[in-house]
């Protein structure tokens, strides 16, 4: 079936409008906080949520079947000043003009926000607390530097939660959650301090539930009101149905597929209002939605096409909300991407194949809608049905960059290594871009971005930035005096340790602040064990509390650079280390011949152990170092190579590097080869990446490759692609994602954006509309090596 007119109309609006800033949420939140001064923070937060649900404008847009919006605009971006507002204050005037991820905002709005909202938060935000508590040394290396960045944990809401639809939300509804909280409260003795704290928690659960119930009720009323005024009989009927659905959910457990879809969106909307979160994951959608579909289908109440249209309406809802981020953050997470990660496929907890009609429906919805959300992930197990593999690879062949494809067993191992019980590890879903995750978990999955290449720059430049000359890291001796590769690697380790140390200090500081003023009653209500334990996520209420994740960036650039020094300086004596230092100091100008030699050295991504082994050693050191630290909760920190789009900003702050890269050029993301240096075959790139011991980097590993479109144009070609994926997973790889659009198409899209508004491409760990990316981001995507043979 082709996409319906309704969905196409909504889609056209999505494709052709810029997100608009709304302050409704921020204003309601602020007013509530003004009223609750002096109360405990968790109650204040829950009360603010409840009040906001009462105050937000209620909007049902043209043609919608799934309703609920975070503000007065259909494509809406909201503000959360309680986390950080100074950056908004600094940047809001340029929101509509900025290159990456612009937002519409009117001068009147800006004036209102500045006069009424920001003044209240002065001195109260997480960001200000963080900066006040952070030393100059840490700031120098780890605040807005591109060497080490942790600001997603103190400038924005956290997110990084997978809602537990299976054990909590769908079976209970918010009515049930409220009743349960009240029940728990009865058993408490408030003369006991511990119980008193629990009482505050349960009170906040009641407020959250009331907020959600209010939201449903208000939409039911609105739909009813609109229905009575509606002249088109068909739409009238639809509005009556919407009213009926919203009068039942999210208060009650859904009883039909339609109600379940609306329920899921309300939960998503609740999370958005609460935190404006990054990586707020719908999780294993096919697993919890299938029972509703099956029951309705068997009862003759729904058919595949009707269900598909509802799923597509939901996909557009996921995409109409835009994350509000700073210019700097936007360079890391380009493309309005909010990482609402939705997982399909894989195995059930009992080990049998988990795919069902909804798995296919999700893939079809993504292909037909071409929306940048949800971030669709697939789990592929060794006995994956060929039909599912064909559906997955067929979606790859459209070039939209979806889905992110994951090895089922590696995901399981990654969680097992963190101490998960087998039944929970087997039930993993994806979080954000490529993080194996669970609905039973509290974890900061994308906490610190740490640059391997920066550590090398400091090691080879006395602890100074090569571009600014500033002493940002620990001093090191004159690089020209190093006498062996081992000595250089030791210097790299020293610098890297310093980065890790300040990352740890920053994140523990951020954790302390969140424990004080970052309570998360809404997210805690979606977590089975928070309710059982009577404790918020920030107080360790969840079943699993996992340490914050460091994501390494620039692995291949660094390994390639060390390989060049090893080969040209110490083995073949083509040049001295001083020559290389002079060359990179001069950004290779006047050293073109040396650069050619450096480029010809073995490069990661070609299945060459000469350099791959260096990369693996660096990755192992990263793991050993990071996991040696414990966080505020006593859990060790976790490593990842997940990338996002951080290879641009982290490259921009670096001078030239010994492997031939010029100053300020991008570095590389995840375990991907450096752009253009994987000159062998796709198989070799996969084999290199698979050497990185994926299962120990439990925060996820990311591999981006480009494929020539011709080679996935046929079923046969796609079967081969499926075989490649299975092989990568057999070798221990975790994730791979492909761009298959030819550069001719991308060039044309750059020249004629109006023709390509809906063109989706892979950025890193996620997809975005190509025309929504800045020119430099577009260029870097084109520069990624296309494997011509495949």
């Amino acid at each position, binding site marked *: 079936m082709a996409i319906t007119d309704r969905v196409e109309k909504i889609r056209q609006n999505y494709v052709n409008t810029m997100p608009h800033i709304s302050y409704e949420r921020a204003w309601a939140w602020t007013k509530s906080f003004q009223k609750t001064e002096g109360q405990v923070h968790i109650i204040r937060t829950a009360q603010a949520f409840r009040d906001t649900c009462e105050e937000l404008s209620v909007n049902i847009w043209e043609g919608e079947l799934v309703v609920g919006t975070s503000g007065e605009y259909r494509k809406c971006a909201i503000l959360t000043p309680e986390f950080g507002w100074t950056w908004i204050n600094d940047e809001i005037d340029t929101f509509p003009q900025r290159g990456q991820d612009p937002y519409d905002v009117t001068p009147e709005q800006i004036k209102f926000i500045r006069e009424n909202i920001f003044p209240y938060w002065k001195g109260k935000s997480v960001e200000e607390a963080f900066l006040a508590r952070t030393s100059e040394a840490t700031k120098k290396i780890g605040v807005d530097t591109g060497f080490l960045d942790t600001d997603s944990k103190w400038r924005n809401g956290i997110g990084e939660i997978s809602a537990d639809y299976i054990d909590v939300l769908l079976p209970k509804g918010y009515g049930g959650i409220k009743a349960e909280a009240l029940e728990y409260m009865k058993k408490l003795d408030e003369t006991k301090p511990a119980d008193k704290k629990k009482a505050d928690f349960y009170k906040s659960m009641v407020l959250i539930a009331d907020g959600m119930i209010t939201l449903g009720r208000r939409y039911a009323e609105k739909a009813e009101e609109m229905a009575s005024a509606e002249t088109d009989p068909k739409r009238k009927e639809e509005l009556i149905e919407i009213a009926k659905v919203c009068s039942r959910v999210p208060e009650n457990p859904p009883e039909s597929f339609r109600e379940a879809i609306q329920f899921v969106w309300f939960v998503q909307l609740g999370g958005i209002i609460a935190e404006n979160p990054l990586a707020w994951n719908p999780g294993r959608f096919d697993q919890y939605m299938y029972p509703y579909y099956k029951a309705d289908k068997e009862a003759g109440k729904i058919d595949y096409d009707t269900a598909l249209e509802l799923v597509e309406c939901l996909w557009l809802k996921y995409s109409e909300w835009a994350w509000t981020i700073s210019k700097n953050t936007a360079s890391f997470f380009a493309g309005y991407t909010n990482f609402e990660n939705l997982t399909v496929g894989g195995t059930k907890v009992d080990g049998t194949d988990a795919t069902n009609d909804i798995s296919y429906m999700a893939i079809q919805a993504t292909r037909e809608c071409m929306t940048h959300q949800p971030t669709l992930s697939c789990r592929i197990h060794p006995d994956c049905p060929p039909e599912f593999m064909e559906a997955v690879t067929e979606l790859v062949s459209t070039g939209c960059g979806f889905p992110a494809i994951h090895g089922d067993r590696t995901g399981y191992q990654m969680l097992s290594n963190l101490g998960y019980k087998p039944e929970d590890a087997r039930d993993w879903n994806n979080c954000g871009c490529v993080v194996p995750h669970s609905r039973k978990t509290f974890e900061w999955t994308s906490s610190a971005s740490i640059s391997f290449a920066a550590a090398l720059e400091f090691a080879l430049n006395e602890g100074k930035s090569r571009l600014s000359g500033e002493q940002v890291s620990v001093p090191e001796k004159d690089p020209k005096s190093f006498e062996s590769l081992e000595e250089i690697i030791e210097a790299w380790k020293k610098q890297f340790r310093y980065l890790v140390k300040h990352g740890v200090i920053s994140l523990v500081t951020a954790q302390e602040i969140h424990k004080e003023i970052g309570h998360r009653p809404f997210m805690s209500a979606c977590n089975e064990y928070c309710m059982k334990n009577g404790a918020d996520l920030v107080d360790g209420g969840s079943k699993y509390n996992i340490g914050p994740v460091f994501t390494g960036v620039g692995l291949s650039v660094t390994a390639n650079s060390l390989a060049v020094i090893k080969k*040209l300086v110490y083995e*073949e004596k*083509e040049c001295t280390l001083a020559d290389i230092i002079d060359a990179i100091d001069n950004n290779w100008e006047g050293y*073109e*011949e040396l650069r*050619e*030699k450096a*480029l*010809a050295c073995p490069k990661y991504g070609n*299945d060459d152990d000469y350099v791959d082994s260096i990369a693996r050693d660096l990755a192992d050191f990263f793991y050993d170092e990071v996991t040696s630290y414990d966080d505020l909760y006593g859990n060790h920190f976790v490593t990842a190579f997940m990338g996002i789009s951080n290879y641009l900003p982290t490259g921009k702050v670096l001078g030239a590097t010994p492997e031939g890269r010029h100053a300020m050029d991008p570095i590389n993301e995840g375990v991907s080869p450096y752009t253009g240096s994987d000159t*062998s*075959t*796709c*198989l*070799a790139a996969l*084999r290199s990446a698979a050497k990185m011991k994926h299962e120990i980097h439990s925060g996820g590993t990311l591999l981006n490759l480009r494929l020539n479109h*011709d*080679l996935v144009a*046929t079923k*046969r*070609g796609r*079967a*081969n692609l*499926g*075989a*490649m994926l*299975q*092989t990568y997973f*057999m*070798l221990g790889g975790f994730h791979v994602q492909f761009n298959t659009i030819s550069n001719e198409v991308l060039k044309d899209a750059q020249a004629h954006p109006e023709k390509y508004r809906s063109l989706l491409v892979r950025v890193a760990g996620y997809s975005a509309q190509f025309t929504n990316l800045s020119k430099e981001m577009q260029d870097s995507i084109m520069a990624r090596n296309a494997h011509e*043979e*495949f």
Partner: protein
Amino acid sequence: MIEKRETIPNGFVMDIQPFSVNDGNGIRTTVFLAGCPLRCQWCSNPEGFSQRELVGWHQRKCIGCGKCAEVCPEGIGICLSEERFADRINRISKNDRCTACGACVKVCPVGARTFMVRQMDAGEVIEKIQKHRLFYMQSGGGVTFSGGEATMQPGFLRCLAERIYDLGYDMAIETSGYFDIQDDNGTFTDKEKRNAEDIRWTLEHMDMIFMDLKIFDDEKHRLYTGVSNKKILKNIKQLGKLHQQKLSAGKSVPAADTLCNKDDHTAGPRVVIRIPVIGGVNDDEENIRCSAAFVHENAPEAEMELLPYHEFGKIKYEALGMAYDRPAFSRPSKEHMEYLKSIVEDEGVKTADFR
């Protein structure tokens, strides 16, 4: 039973290319063996003409550092291709000043000097093939022998084929069909007999055989390829018989069980007769029709595949300093290829496609 001959451990290898997806099932590694009795004017692998080691110079990569010239025992300068061939008519001359000692390959810091044909021992080749075994297992792929003309090194070819057969990988061969496996007049020397046995053994153990039928008209065939096509036509007939022989010999063991979509091979190798379609040479309806009719009559089990001409080989001519002086061959249009395909099917021959 044909007895195994003693192992030939060394052969002349042009390239071992992993991730080949258009010459047989699944993901394959193609082994290009040097030496070819034909001199097709459109050839894209000129390094494969002879069984001899060859070094090439890739001008685009060269930084002109002169290291190669410093180490060359023959005193050849940087521009290898400009000073190497004494005799340009024969293209690759025995009088070539370059002896392919490889000294320059070793010292070139940027990979501008490479071996384009190199002697390798079978173990080394097998090791490179095995590296990708998981990809073969998952995709139902394996190994394809190509060239040059792989049957020009019958002992080495068989040696490789035997080892791969034992490993259980899917095997295919691409051949010009220009070989002798039938001693019709009883005039074979011992060496020729042994070669014929090796080739026959190899063909019988293939899962798939690609054989070219470049031009049906013999005179034209001689003009464009330098040899008559009589032997090729004869061998196509032989292939037709291979099925029955293999069945009666009772040794139809398919390669290891893989999950690919391949057909049941118990009846012998799948045979695909290929026509490289060169605009202006053999892309006329008559040539295609006659070829297809011949295949239909003499190898009824065989399928046919039409491949359009490409110019990817140009870069190799440059690297070897060989003149790329060929008539203006053209690449047939997609529509014309479709039309020719319909003619083949018209003649009752199934067409194959590995794209």
